[in-house]
């Protein structure tokens, strides 16, 4: 039986998500707002790169997210060759799903009690 488009997409996101969980420290910063800023920032820069666009690097934070995203995108391309064939719509969908999953595990459903402490 052929897998549905949703299953195929979900399997692809599984691979990307597995890579990020295992390799990327930026998802695990100290507080929920740091994690949110990093997840949104890195995924945004990675999306640009996967779509062949040059990411904005006007601010130090943007340059930081670009540096983290570049390694990730390079690894995505070498480990998951199917990503090179993904069209714009699919790239956006993959990265949107990836962002959602990371936000869930690192922030929304995290059991880390320190995430919402107002001070560092």
């Amino acid at each position, binding site marked *: 039986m052929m897998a549905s488009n949703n299953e195929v997409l979900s399997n692809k996101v599984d691979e990307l998500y597995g890579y990020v*969980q295992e390799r990327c*420290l930026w998802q695990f910063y100290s507080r929920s707002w*740091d994690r949110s800023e990093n997840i949104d920032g890195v995924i945004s820069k990675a999306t640009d790169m996967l779509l062949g666009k040059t990411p904005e690097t006007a601010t130090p934070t943007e340059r930081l997210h670009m540096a983290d995203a570049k390694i990730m995108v390079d690894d995505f391309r070498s480990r998951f060759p199917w990503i090179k064939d993904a069209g714009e719509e699919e790239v956006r969908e993959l990265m949107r799903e990836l962002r959602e999953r990371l936000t869930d*595990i690192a922030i929304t459903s995290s059991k880390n009690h320190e995430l919402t402490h107002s001070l560092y």
Partner: protein
Amino acid sequence: MPMVLLKCDKDIPDRQKHIYLKAPDEDTRSYLPISNAATIPGTLSERGCAFCGAKLVIGGVLKDTIQMIHGPIGCAYDTWHTKRYPTDNGHFNMKYVWSTDMKESHIVFGGEKRLEKSMHEAFEQMPDIKRMIVYTTCPTALIGDDVKAVAKRVMAERPDVDVFTVECPGFSGVSQSKGHHVLNIGWINEKVATMEKEITSEYTMNFIGDFNIQGDTQLLQTYWDRLGIQVVSHFTGNGTYDDLRCMHQAKLNVVNCARSSGYIANELKKRYGIPRLDIDSWGFGYMAEGIRKICTFFGIEEKGEALIADEYAKWKPQLDWYKERLKGTKMAIWTGGPRLWHWTKSVEDDLGVQVVAMSSKFGHEEDFEKVIARGKEGTYYIDDGNELEFFEIIDLVKPDVIFTGPRVGELIKKLHIPYVNGHGYHNGPYMGFEGFVNLARDMYNAVHNPLTTLAGIDIRTPAQVQLKEAA
């Protein structure tokens, strides 16, 4: 049932919340060991105290600073020279130890005069040294000695000196982690931006959370020099007091040990807008990744690639020699916290080593999120482990080598299991490319050392055996 109640913990069942065995299709949304919590009565913790976290881990590393410990003499010795952090100025920090040597009468009548006298004495005995950190300890905190007032008086009398105070007695937190926190936050509040240094490169960074264990900082510094990056301050490996006052001048904070030093990186980001980049400095793949990220941030990618190529050419063949011989080795990591997540994938990727159990003395839940995400299924993840638990875990996972500190290391040696010092190293540095070859060599020497097995053979004749060994 992934949270594990070990047999030895049957009388302290709350320990189950601190020990996790990773099973397929699970993640940290379902199970996360409780950590950075008070040690459960009945468990014999391996933890250090909060004062130790401030002095032994961070402050005591500095190469130009008197470390005045305001307390009984034992607090000084036990946080001196047990960590191996050399310096490039002759190891000043490891040659000397300073204490106010508080006795009963000083506790009864107050210790401020004694502290003031000791501070003057220290500056007079060491006229070239103009910087000092004063630490309170349990008794001097309890009697309420006002060390900040004393420091002000001394600085008023000696305009050329600068003194920082750390009020973090041993009882002030559940582990040494509290000491990291107090020193980080105190320093950013009181000392950062009180000095400016000459900036010599357009690429500037602080390297945070690396303590020059057996030369880690000095090895990595050779990379930054080759890349033309100025390290404004090292927090605190081979570092100086005044460089740490200039942290606000850097364009990037690169963080290795996020547990001991993430706080100051966060505050530098919040107060000065300096971004925080976390990297792993142990392991070939990780080190290359870290260098690539730093170079991408500064726009000097080509320089980074050249450096990585040079280092791979020089060290990778040696690493591969060890990998061939270490493949399949089962390793346990029982250290402070971050080395669990720094090492578990790097030894797997670079050496083919399988990590089967990990225990953290002072890690927080953030550290367990990282290590469980990186670690394997079937591996034990333990917070604040104790000796009986270690015995039981050893029986369950049968490690070939254990990376831990000297105290637990002595226990392990008696079990005739190879041990490598995971805190101070056997023959480091362990960071960087060359460093990871050193780690591999020490692991290889430990695993293949015939003495470990030979020492377990009782060569006495039965008639000579008067007492059977207890263990």
